[in-house]
């Protein structure tokens, strides 16, 4: 054992805290660096296109016209639609595993399955979507009388919804299982039913956590590339309904980056990346604000 030398002790403490600070700062620098790189590389496009980039409705590499609006719409539409589809499922799973069946073999099994959903590579979802989901959606589309493409915004949203369920479900389950027993017992002793306990005690107590989970899954949906590219239809025309083909910012970048043979084209694609980055940041900031509102 080392002798306790107070001077040395202080030195070690200092060294330790400094290491922590530097490591944390490195991450910060990385994120700032990422943003600066995107900004610098997209400068030619920003100078050339200005705000036209944001609101332009045409993406035409042949005539060097780049408008990100159709992809912005596509990204937001698929992500929020996926969120709406996924919320009932993720919340149901969270409540079931957090409150009704917190322990036991069934619970452990379900928990593992949910985590597995998050671990499956997205290209596999894309394949599954293409082979199984697309024909199903196509037959649905021909029944309700829209053009039966099978692929499009709607199909992409369903795939995304499945992919993001685990994020909200896991965090939600964690939060719900942490609700103090006294609170619940108090409510039961006042004659509340189980549903009433969930509604009046558990949900209000955990809502910031549940919302944080939803936010996390939204972040995942915004950036998802491969699975979406395979089923969205990759059309630069602004979608007129949720069954129409569309395109997302991440898909366009993945599709066109390797063969972008002019500097303005390349720069516009990088600016698209920056826009995606900013959209994610803005949504996160708004989400954090809402969570703060819950807590005060």
């Amino acid at each position, binding site marked *: 054992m080392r002798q306790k030398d107070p001077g040395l002790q202080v030195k070690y403490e200092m060294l330790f805290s400094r290491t922590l600070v530097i490591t944390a700062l490195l991450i910060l620098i990385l994120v700032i*660096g990422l943003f600066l790189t995107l900004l610098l590389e997209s400068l030619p496009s920003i100078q050339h296109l200005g705000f036209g980039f944001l609101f332009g409705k045409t993406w035409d*590499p042949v005539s060097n016209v780049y408008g990100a609006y159709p992809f912005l719409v596509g990204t937001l539409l698929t992500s929020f639609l996926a969120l709406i589809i996924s919320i009932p499922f993720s919340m149901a799973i969270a409540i079931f595993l957090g409150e009704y069946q917190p322990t036991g073999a069934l619970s452990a099994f379900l928990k593992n399955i949910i985590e597995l959903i998050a671990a499956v590579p997205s290209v596999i979802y894309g394949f599954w979507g293409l082979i199984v989901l697309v024909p199903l959606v196509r037959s649905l589309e021909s029944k309700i009388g829209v053009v039966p493409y099978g*692929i499009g915004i709607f199909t992409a949203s369903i795939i995304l919804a499945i992919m993001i369920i685990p994020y909200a479900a896991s965090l939600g389950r964690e939060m719900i299982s942490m609700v103090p027993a006294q609170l619940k017992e108090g409510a039961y002793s006042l004659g509340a039913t189980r549903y009433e306990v969930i509604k009046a005690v558990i949900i209000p107590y955990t809502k910031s956590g549940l919302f944080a989970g939803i936010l996390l899954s939204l972040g995942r949906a915004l950036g998802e590339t491969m699975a979406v590219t395979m089923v969205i239809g*990759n*059309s630069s025309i602004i979608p007129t309904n949720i069954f129409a083909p569309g395109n997302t910012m991440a898909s366009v970048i993945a599709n066109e980056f390797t063969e972008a*043979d002019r500097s303005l084209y390349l720069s516009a694609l990088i600016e698209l990346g920056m826009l995606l980055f900013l959209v994610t940041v803005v949504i996160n900031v708004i989400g954090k604000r809402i969570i703060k509102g819950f807590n005060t």
Partner: protein
Amino acid sequence: MNKQLLNVKNALYAGVILTAVGFSACNSNSGHEGTQDSTETATTDKNALLGAGSTFVYPLFSKQFSEYNKATGLKVNYQSIGSGGGILQLTNKTVDFGDSDAPLNEEQTKKIGVDVLHIPMCSGAVVLSYNLPEVKTALKLTPALLSDIFLGKIKTWKDPKIAAANTGVNLPDMPIVIAHRSDGSGTTNIFTTYLTKVSPEWTSKVGAGSSINWPAGLGGKGNEGVAGLIKQTPGAIGYIELAYAMQNKMPFASIQNKSGKFIAASVASTSAASNIKLPADSKVSLSNTDAADGYPISGFTWAIIYKEQNYNNRTAEKSEALLKLLWWNIHEGQKFCETLHYAPLSPAAISVAETILKSATFGGKAILK
């Protein structure tokens, strides 16, 4: 307490300075990172050449280079990163040769600064595949039909214009679903270049390029993506590489060529398309060929090298090895084309390619005699 605060501050400053330095370093040689290293390895290893570019030609190059390795012991490492990427790598001098499905455009030519040579390696055809289970014989399509379909003007298979070209064929009353490539691709470039040649309306509304603004249809990633869309969607039509269609036994349409004949795509009819009078630099689109037996939608893929091979301290031996390899490719190497469904160069193309290769120099002197 104060001291600790100071430390945090110091660390912060250090971090900011580090980032700044990092960025300025990146900027001063953006795109050249690692350039030096890989050239070094490329030049030090006498028995290895480095290439990068087109994914289209990759299966053929793998076969050719492995055969060449067996014969001569020269190792060729070819990375199929896409034509645009290959040109960029050549511009940065990280590779000995690039390969592109389209000649360098104006901006790329300006960026590279010096003379480069385009040497045709083989040609490939783009076919129109479709999903019409009732149609047993090959569909016939005219240039006007093709452009109208892809412009979204002809919307159903029952359209009288399609029926006029396909007498006796029972066409279903189904909407036409167009499938195109979503990723930037030489295949798209060949197909859209063809459409601009045959249709003024396509030229003014859409144009040609490796990525374009499609007026209609669905996009799939890669040949397999488009093929998947076609196979899955009844009534679909889309363009894919001939090799891919043949390997997967997909039906494809006969296309009317400039001489008015309906030509089914094949290795022979694609080779025939390049048997025309070619310009001395070989930079020509083969689409809408004058050859009477030529399939009209095809194009060369070109190996691209610097005309003056004495750059970046390259040795004369290395340049000679490169030129000999390419010479072998356009002669003995051609026999590997057909089994892989590539079209071998026509006699006219080989003679042009020979002249181009002979014009390469090292320190002003011709490398090949």
